């Protein structure tokens, strides 16, 4: 461990103010209602007291609920298109949880493939993620079952561990190490590091929700055509879409025009595979029935996305469990997907 540093919690405001000179700094906040990452106001670090995770995932800083893609207007020469000012902000997301940082790497696969998404990429490219390991995970968290953990470092540039009055900071990427180096932080002692390790281990023990996700893609494939099975699972779903809109790895979007042919904007907004209109065509709808939409959501995360990118598109953050109005519990559902019989074997 190349020289961990530490931050006294009482000095955090000063450090954040310093960082906010260089970055658009986002911290957990609940002043607007649901907890989300909002721009640092220069003083309030009270989130250290209440923050477990945000309700609105940090993906919103990169893939906003709604954004203008371009505007258009018509003059004598015809239609003129204009891009919004390019987003040159260097973002620093402070205290992002490991599950949400890893979720961004899952979005990267989609938005930075052969067709680069200029909006997402522009925001993401220069962003620094400062992770804060969990010390108080929710009952609904199951990150350790899907390849993550409360102090997992995938996607973060700096990893912070809460050891009481102080945060131990470890550089994970080059950018993170450089930021630490120029932030004038005190060196973490051997004892600090020991306490950090203990804190991390304790947190890991607190993630008590376990789901056996081995062979999950094959298990889902085996029940894929069992309509009764899915109808039963989908029965209580309201198709409200909250599980997808607030999921840190869901990225589906809609594109719509606002205004008139004379003057308007083309906008992108989050969409959800839970909505019947999502796949609706004038003559038919391949997923008009709710069970098909529920099946698609679960299978996309645990079967289809892994087929494309070799990783599960769920980080076990538990938001969809906590926020579902009818308590549709994905971890419970996954546990219930039948094990493969010997004959089927893993595919």
């Amino acid at each position, binding site marked *: 461990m190349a020289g961990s540093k530490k931050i006294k919690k009482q000095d955090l405001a000063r450090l954040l103010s310093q960082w906010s000179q260089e970055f658009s700094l986002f911290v957990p906040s609940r002043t607007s209602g649901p907890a989300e990452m909002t721009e640092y106001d220069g003083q309030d670090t009270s989130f250290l007291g209440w923050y477990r995770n945000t309700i609105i995932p940090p993906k919103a800083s990169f893939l906003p609920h709604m954004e203008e893609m*371009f505007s258009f207007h018509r003059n004598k020469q*015809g239609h003129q298109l204009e891009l919004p000012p390019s987003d040159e902000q260097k973002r620093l997301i402070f205290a992002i949880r490991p599950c949400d940082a890893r979720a961004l790497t899952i979005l990267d696969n*989609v938005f930075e493939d052969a067709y680069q998404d200029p909006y997402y990429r522009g925001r993401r490219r220069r962003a620094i993620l400062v992770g804060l390991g969990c010390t108080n995970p929710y009952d609904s968290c199951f990150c350790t079952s899907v390849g993550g953990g409360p102090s997992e470092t995938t996607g973060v540039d700096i990893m912070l561990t809460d050891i009481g009055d102080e945060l131990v900071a470890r550089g994970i990427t080059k950018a993170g190490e450089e930021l630490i180096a120029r932030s004038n932080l005190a060196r973490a002692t051997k004892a600090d590091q020991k306490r950090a390790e203990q804190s991390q281990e304790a947190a890991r023990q607190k993630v008590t929700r376990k789901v056996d996700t081995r062979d999950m893609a094959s298990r889902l494939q085996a029940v894929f*055509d069992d309509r009764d099975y899915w109808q039963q699972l989908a029965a209580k779903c309201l198709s409200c879409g909250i599980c997808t809109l607030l999921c840190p790895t869901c990225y589906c*979007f809609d*594109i719509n025009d606002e205004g008139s*042919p004379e003057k308007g904007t083309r906008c992108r907004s989050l969409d959800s595979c839970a909505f019947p209109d999502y*796949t609706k065509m004038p003559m038919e709808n*391949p997923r008009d029935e709710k069970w098909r939409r529920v099946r698609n959501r679960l299978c996309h995360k645990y079967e289809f996305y892994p087929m494309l990118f070799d990783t599960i598109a769920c980080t076990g953050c538990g938001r969809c469990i906590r926020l579902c109005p009818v308590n549709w519990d994905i971890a419970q559902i996954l546990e219930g997907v039948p094990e493969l019989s010997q004959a089927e074997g893993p595919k």
Partner: protein
Amino acid sequence: MTITDISQRKRFLAQGNVYLPHIAVIERIIDETPGIRTFHFNFKDERLRGEFTFESGQFGEFSVFGVGEAPFCISSSPTRQDHLGFTVQRVGRVTNALHRLAVGAEIGFRGPYGNGFPINNLEGKNLVFVAGGIGLAPLRSLVWNVIDNRAKYRNVDIIYGARSPADLCFKYDLDSWQKDKTVNLFTTVDKGDDKWKGKVGFVPQVLEGVAPSADGAVAVVCGPPIMIRFTFPVLEKLGFTPEQMLTTLEKRMKCGIGKCGRCNIGNIYVCRDGPVFSYAQIMNLVSSEY
């Protein structure tokens, strides 16, 4: 199924903002049927007119500013670059807005997207084109492509049908293919009228009657889902293997580039991995939601 490597494809608009459409102008409007129109268009930017290339079977995202975008296949042939065309049935918000446009109106275009027909694999083959209604739109691009390179292909059969004589699209094409001694056209309608002297019957039945040989042949099928569902078994009966049958799938799309999510069938995105698939590929899809 292998996911086609997108980076290998010709990608117009590969640089810059992929969502920013090019401005194109409607140059001609053809009433195909009471509810279907073909629009000829060309880019405002002179340079793009020269640079733009596409393959038969590829599609674009067409937009009416202030109303929205929708995907349509390019119905003109890459061998006839004097104009580009797309064909639209009036069914929803964007298609209604398109139908209200006049010659000279501006639209947005991004693309071309999708894989297109595997034209190189069709060389040296007997070709059987089976289409219903507006399903002739992607196929006519391929048919003209084949006719314009006629020596590369062997026998060409075209079986095309619509509900009634008034619902037949591209009647001007049907006239020229009828006169063209190098292709065999069989036109049929589900229900004739006083003036109709041609075949009456559903496309799959007519196909069965024509009975093209499966030997060294490829069948390309485009049309309403119900027609496709009844056509595949007929082709199988005629000895076509699933690899010898091609079709295009239709799904709701927004981005056209495999990101917005909605056109998936399992792990496949119709916009990016299709819209052209062989029946063999379709049978292997993890989901039957096609």
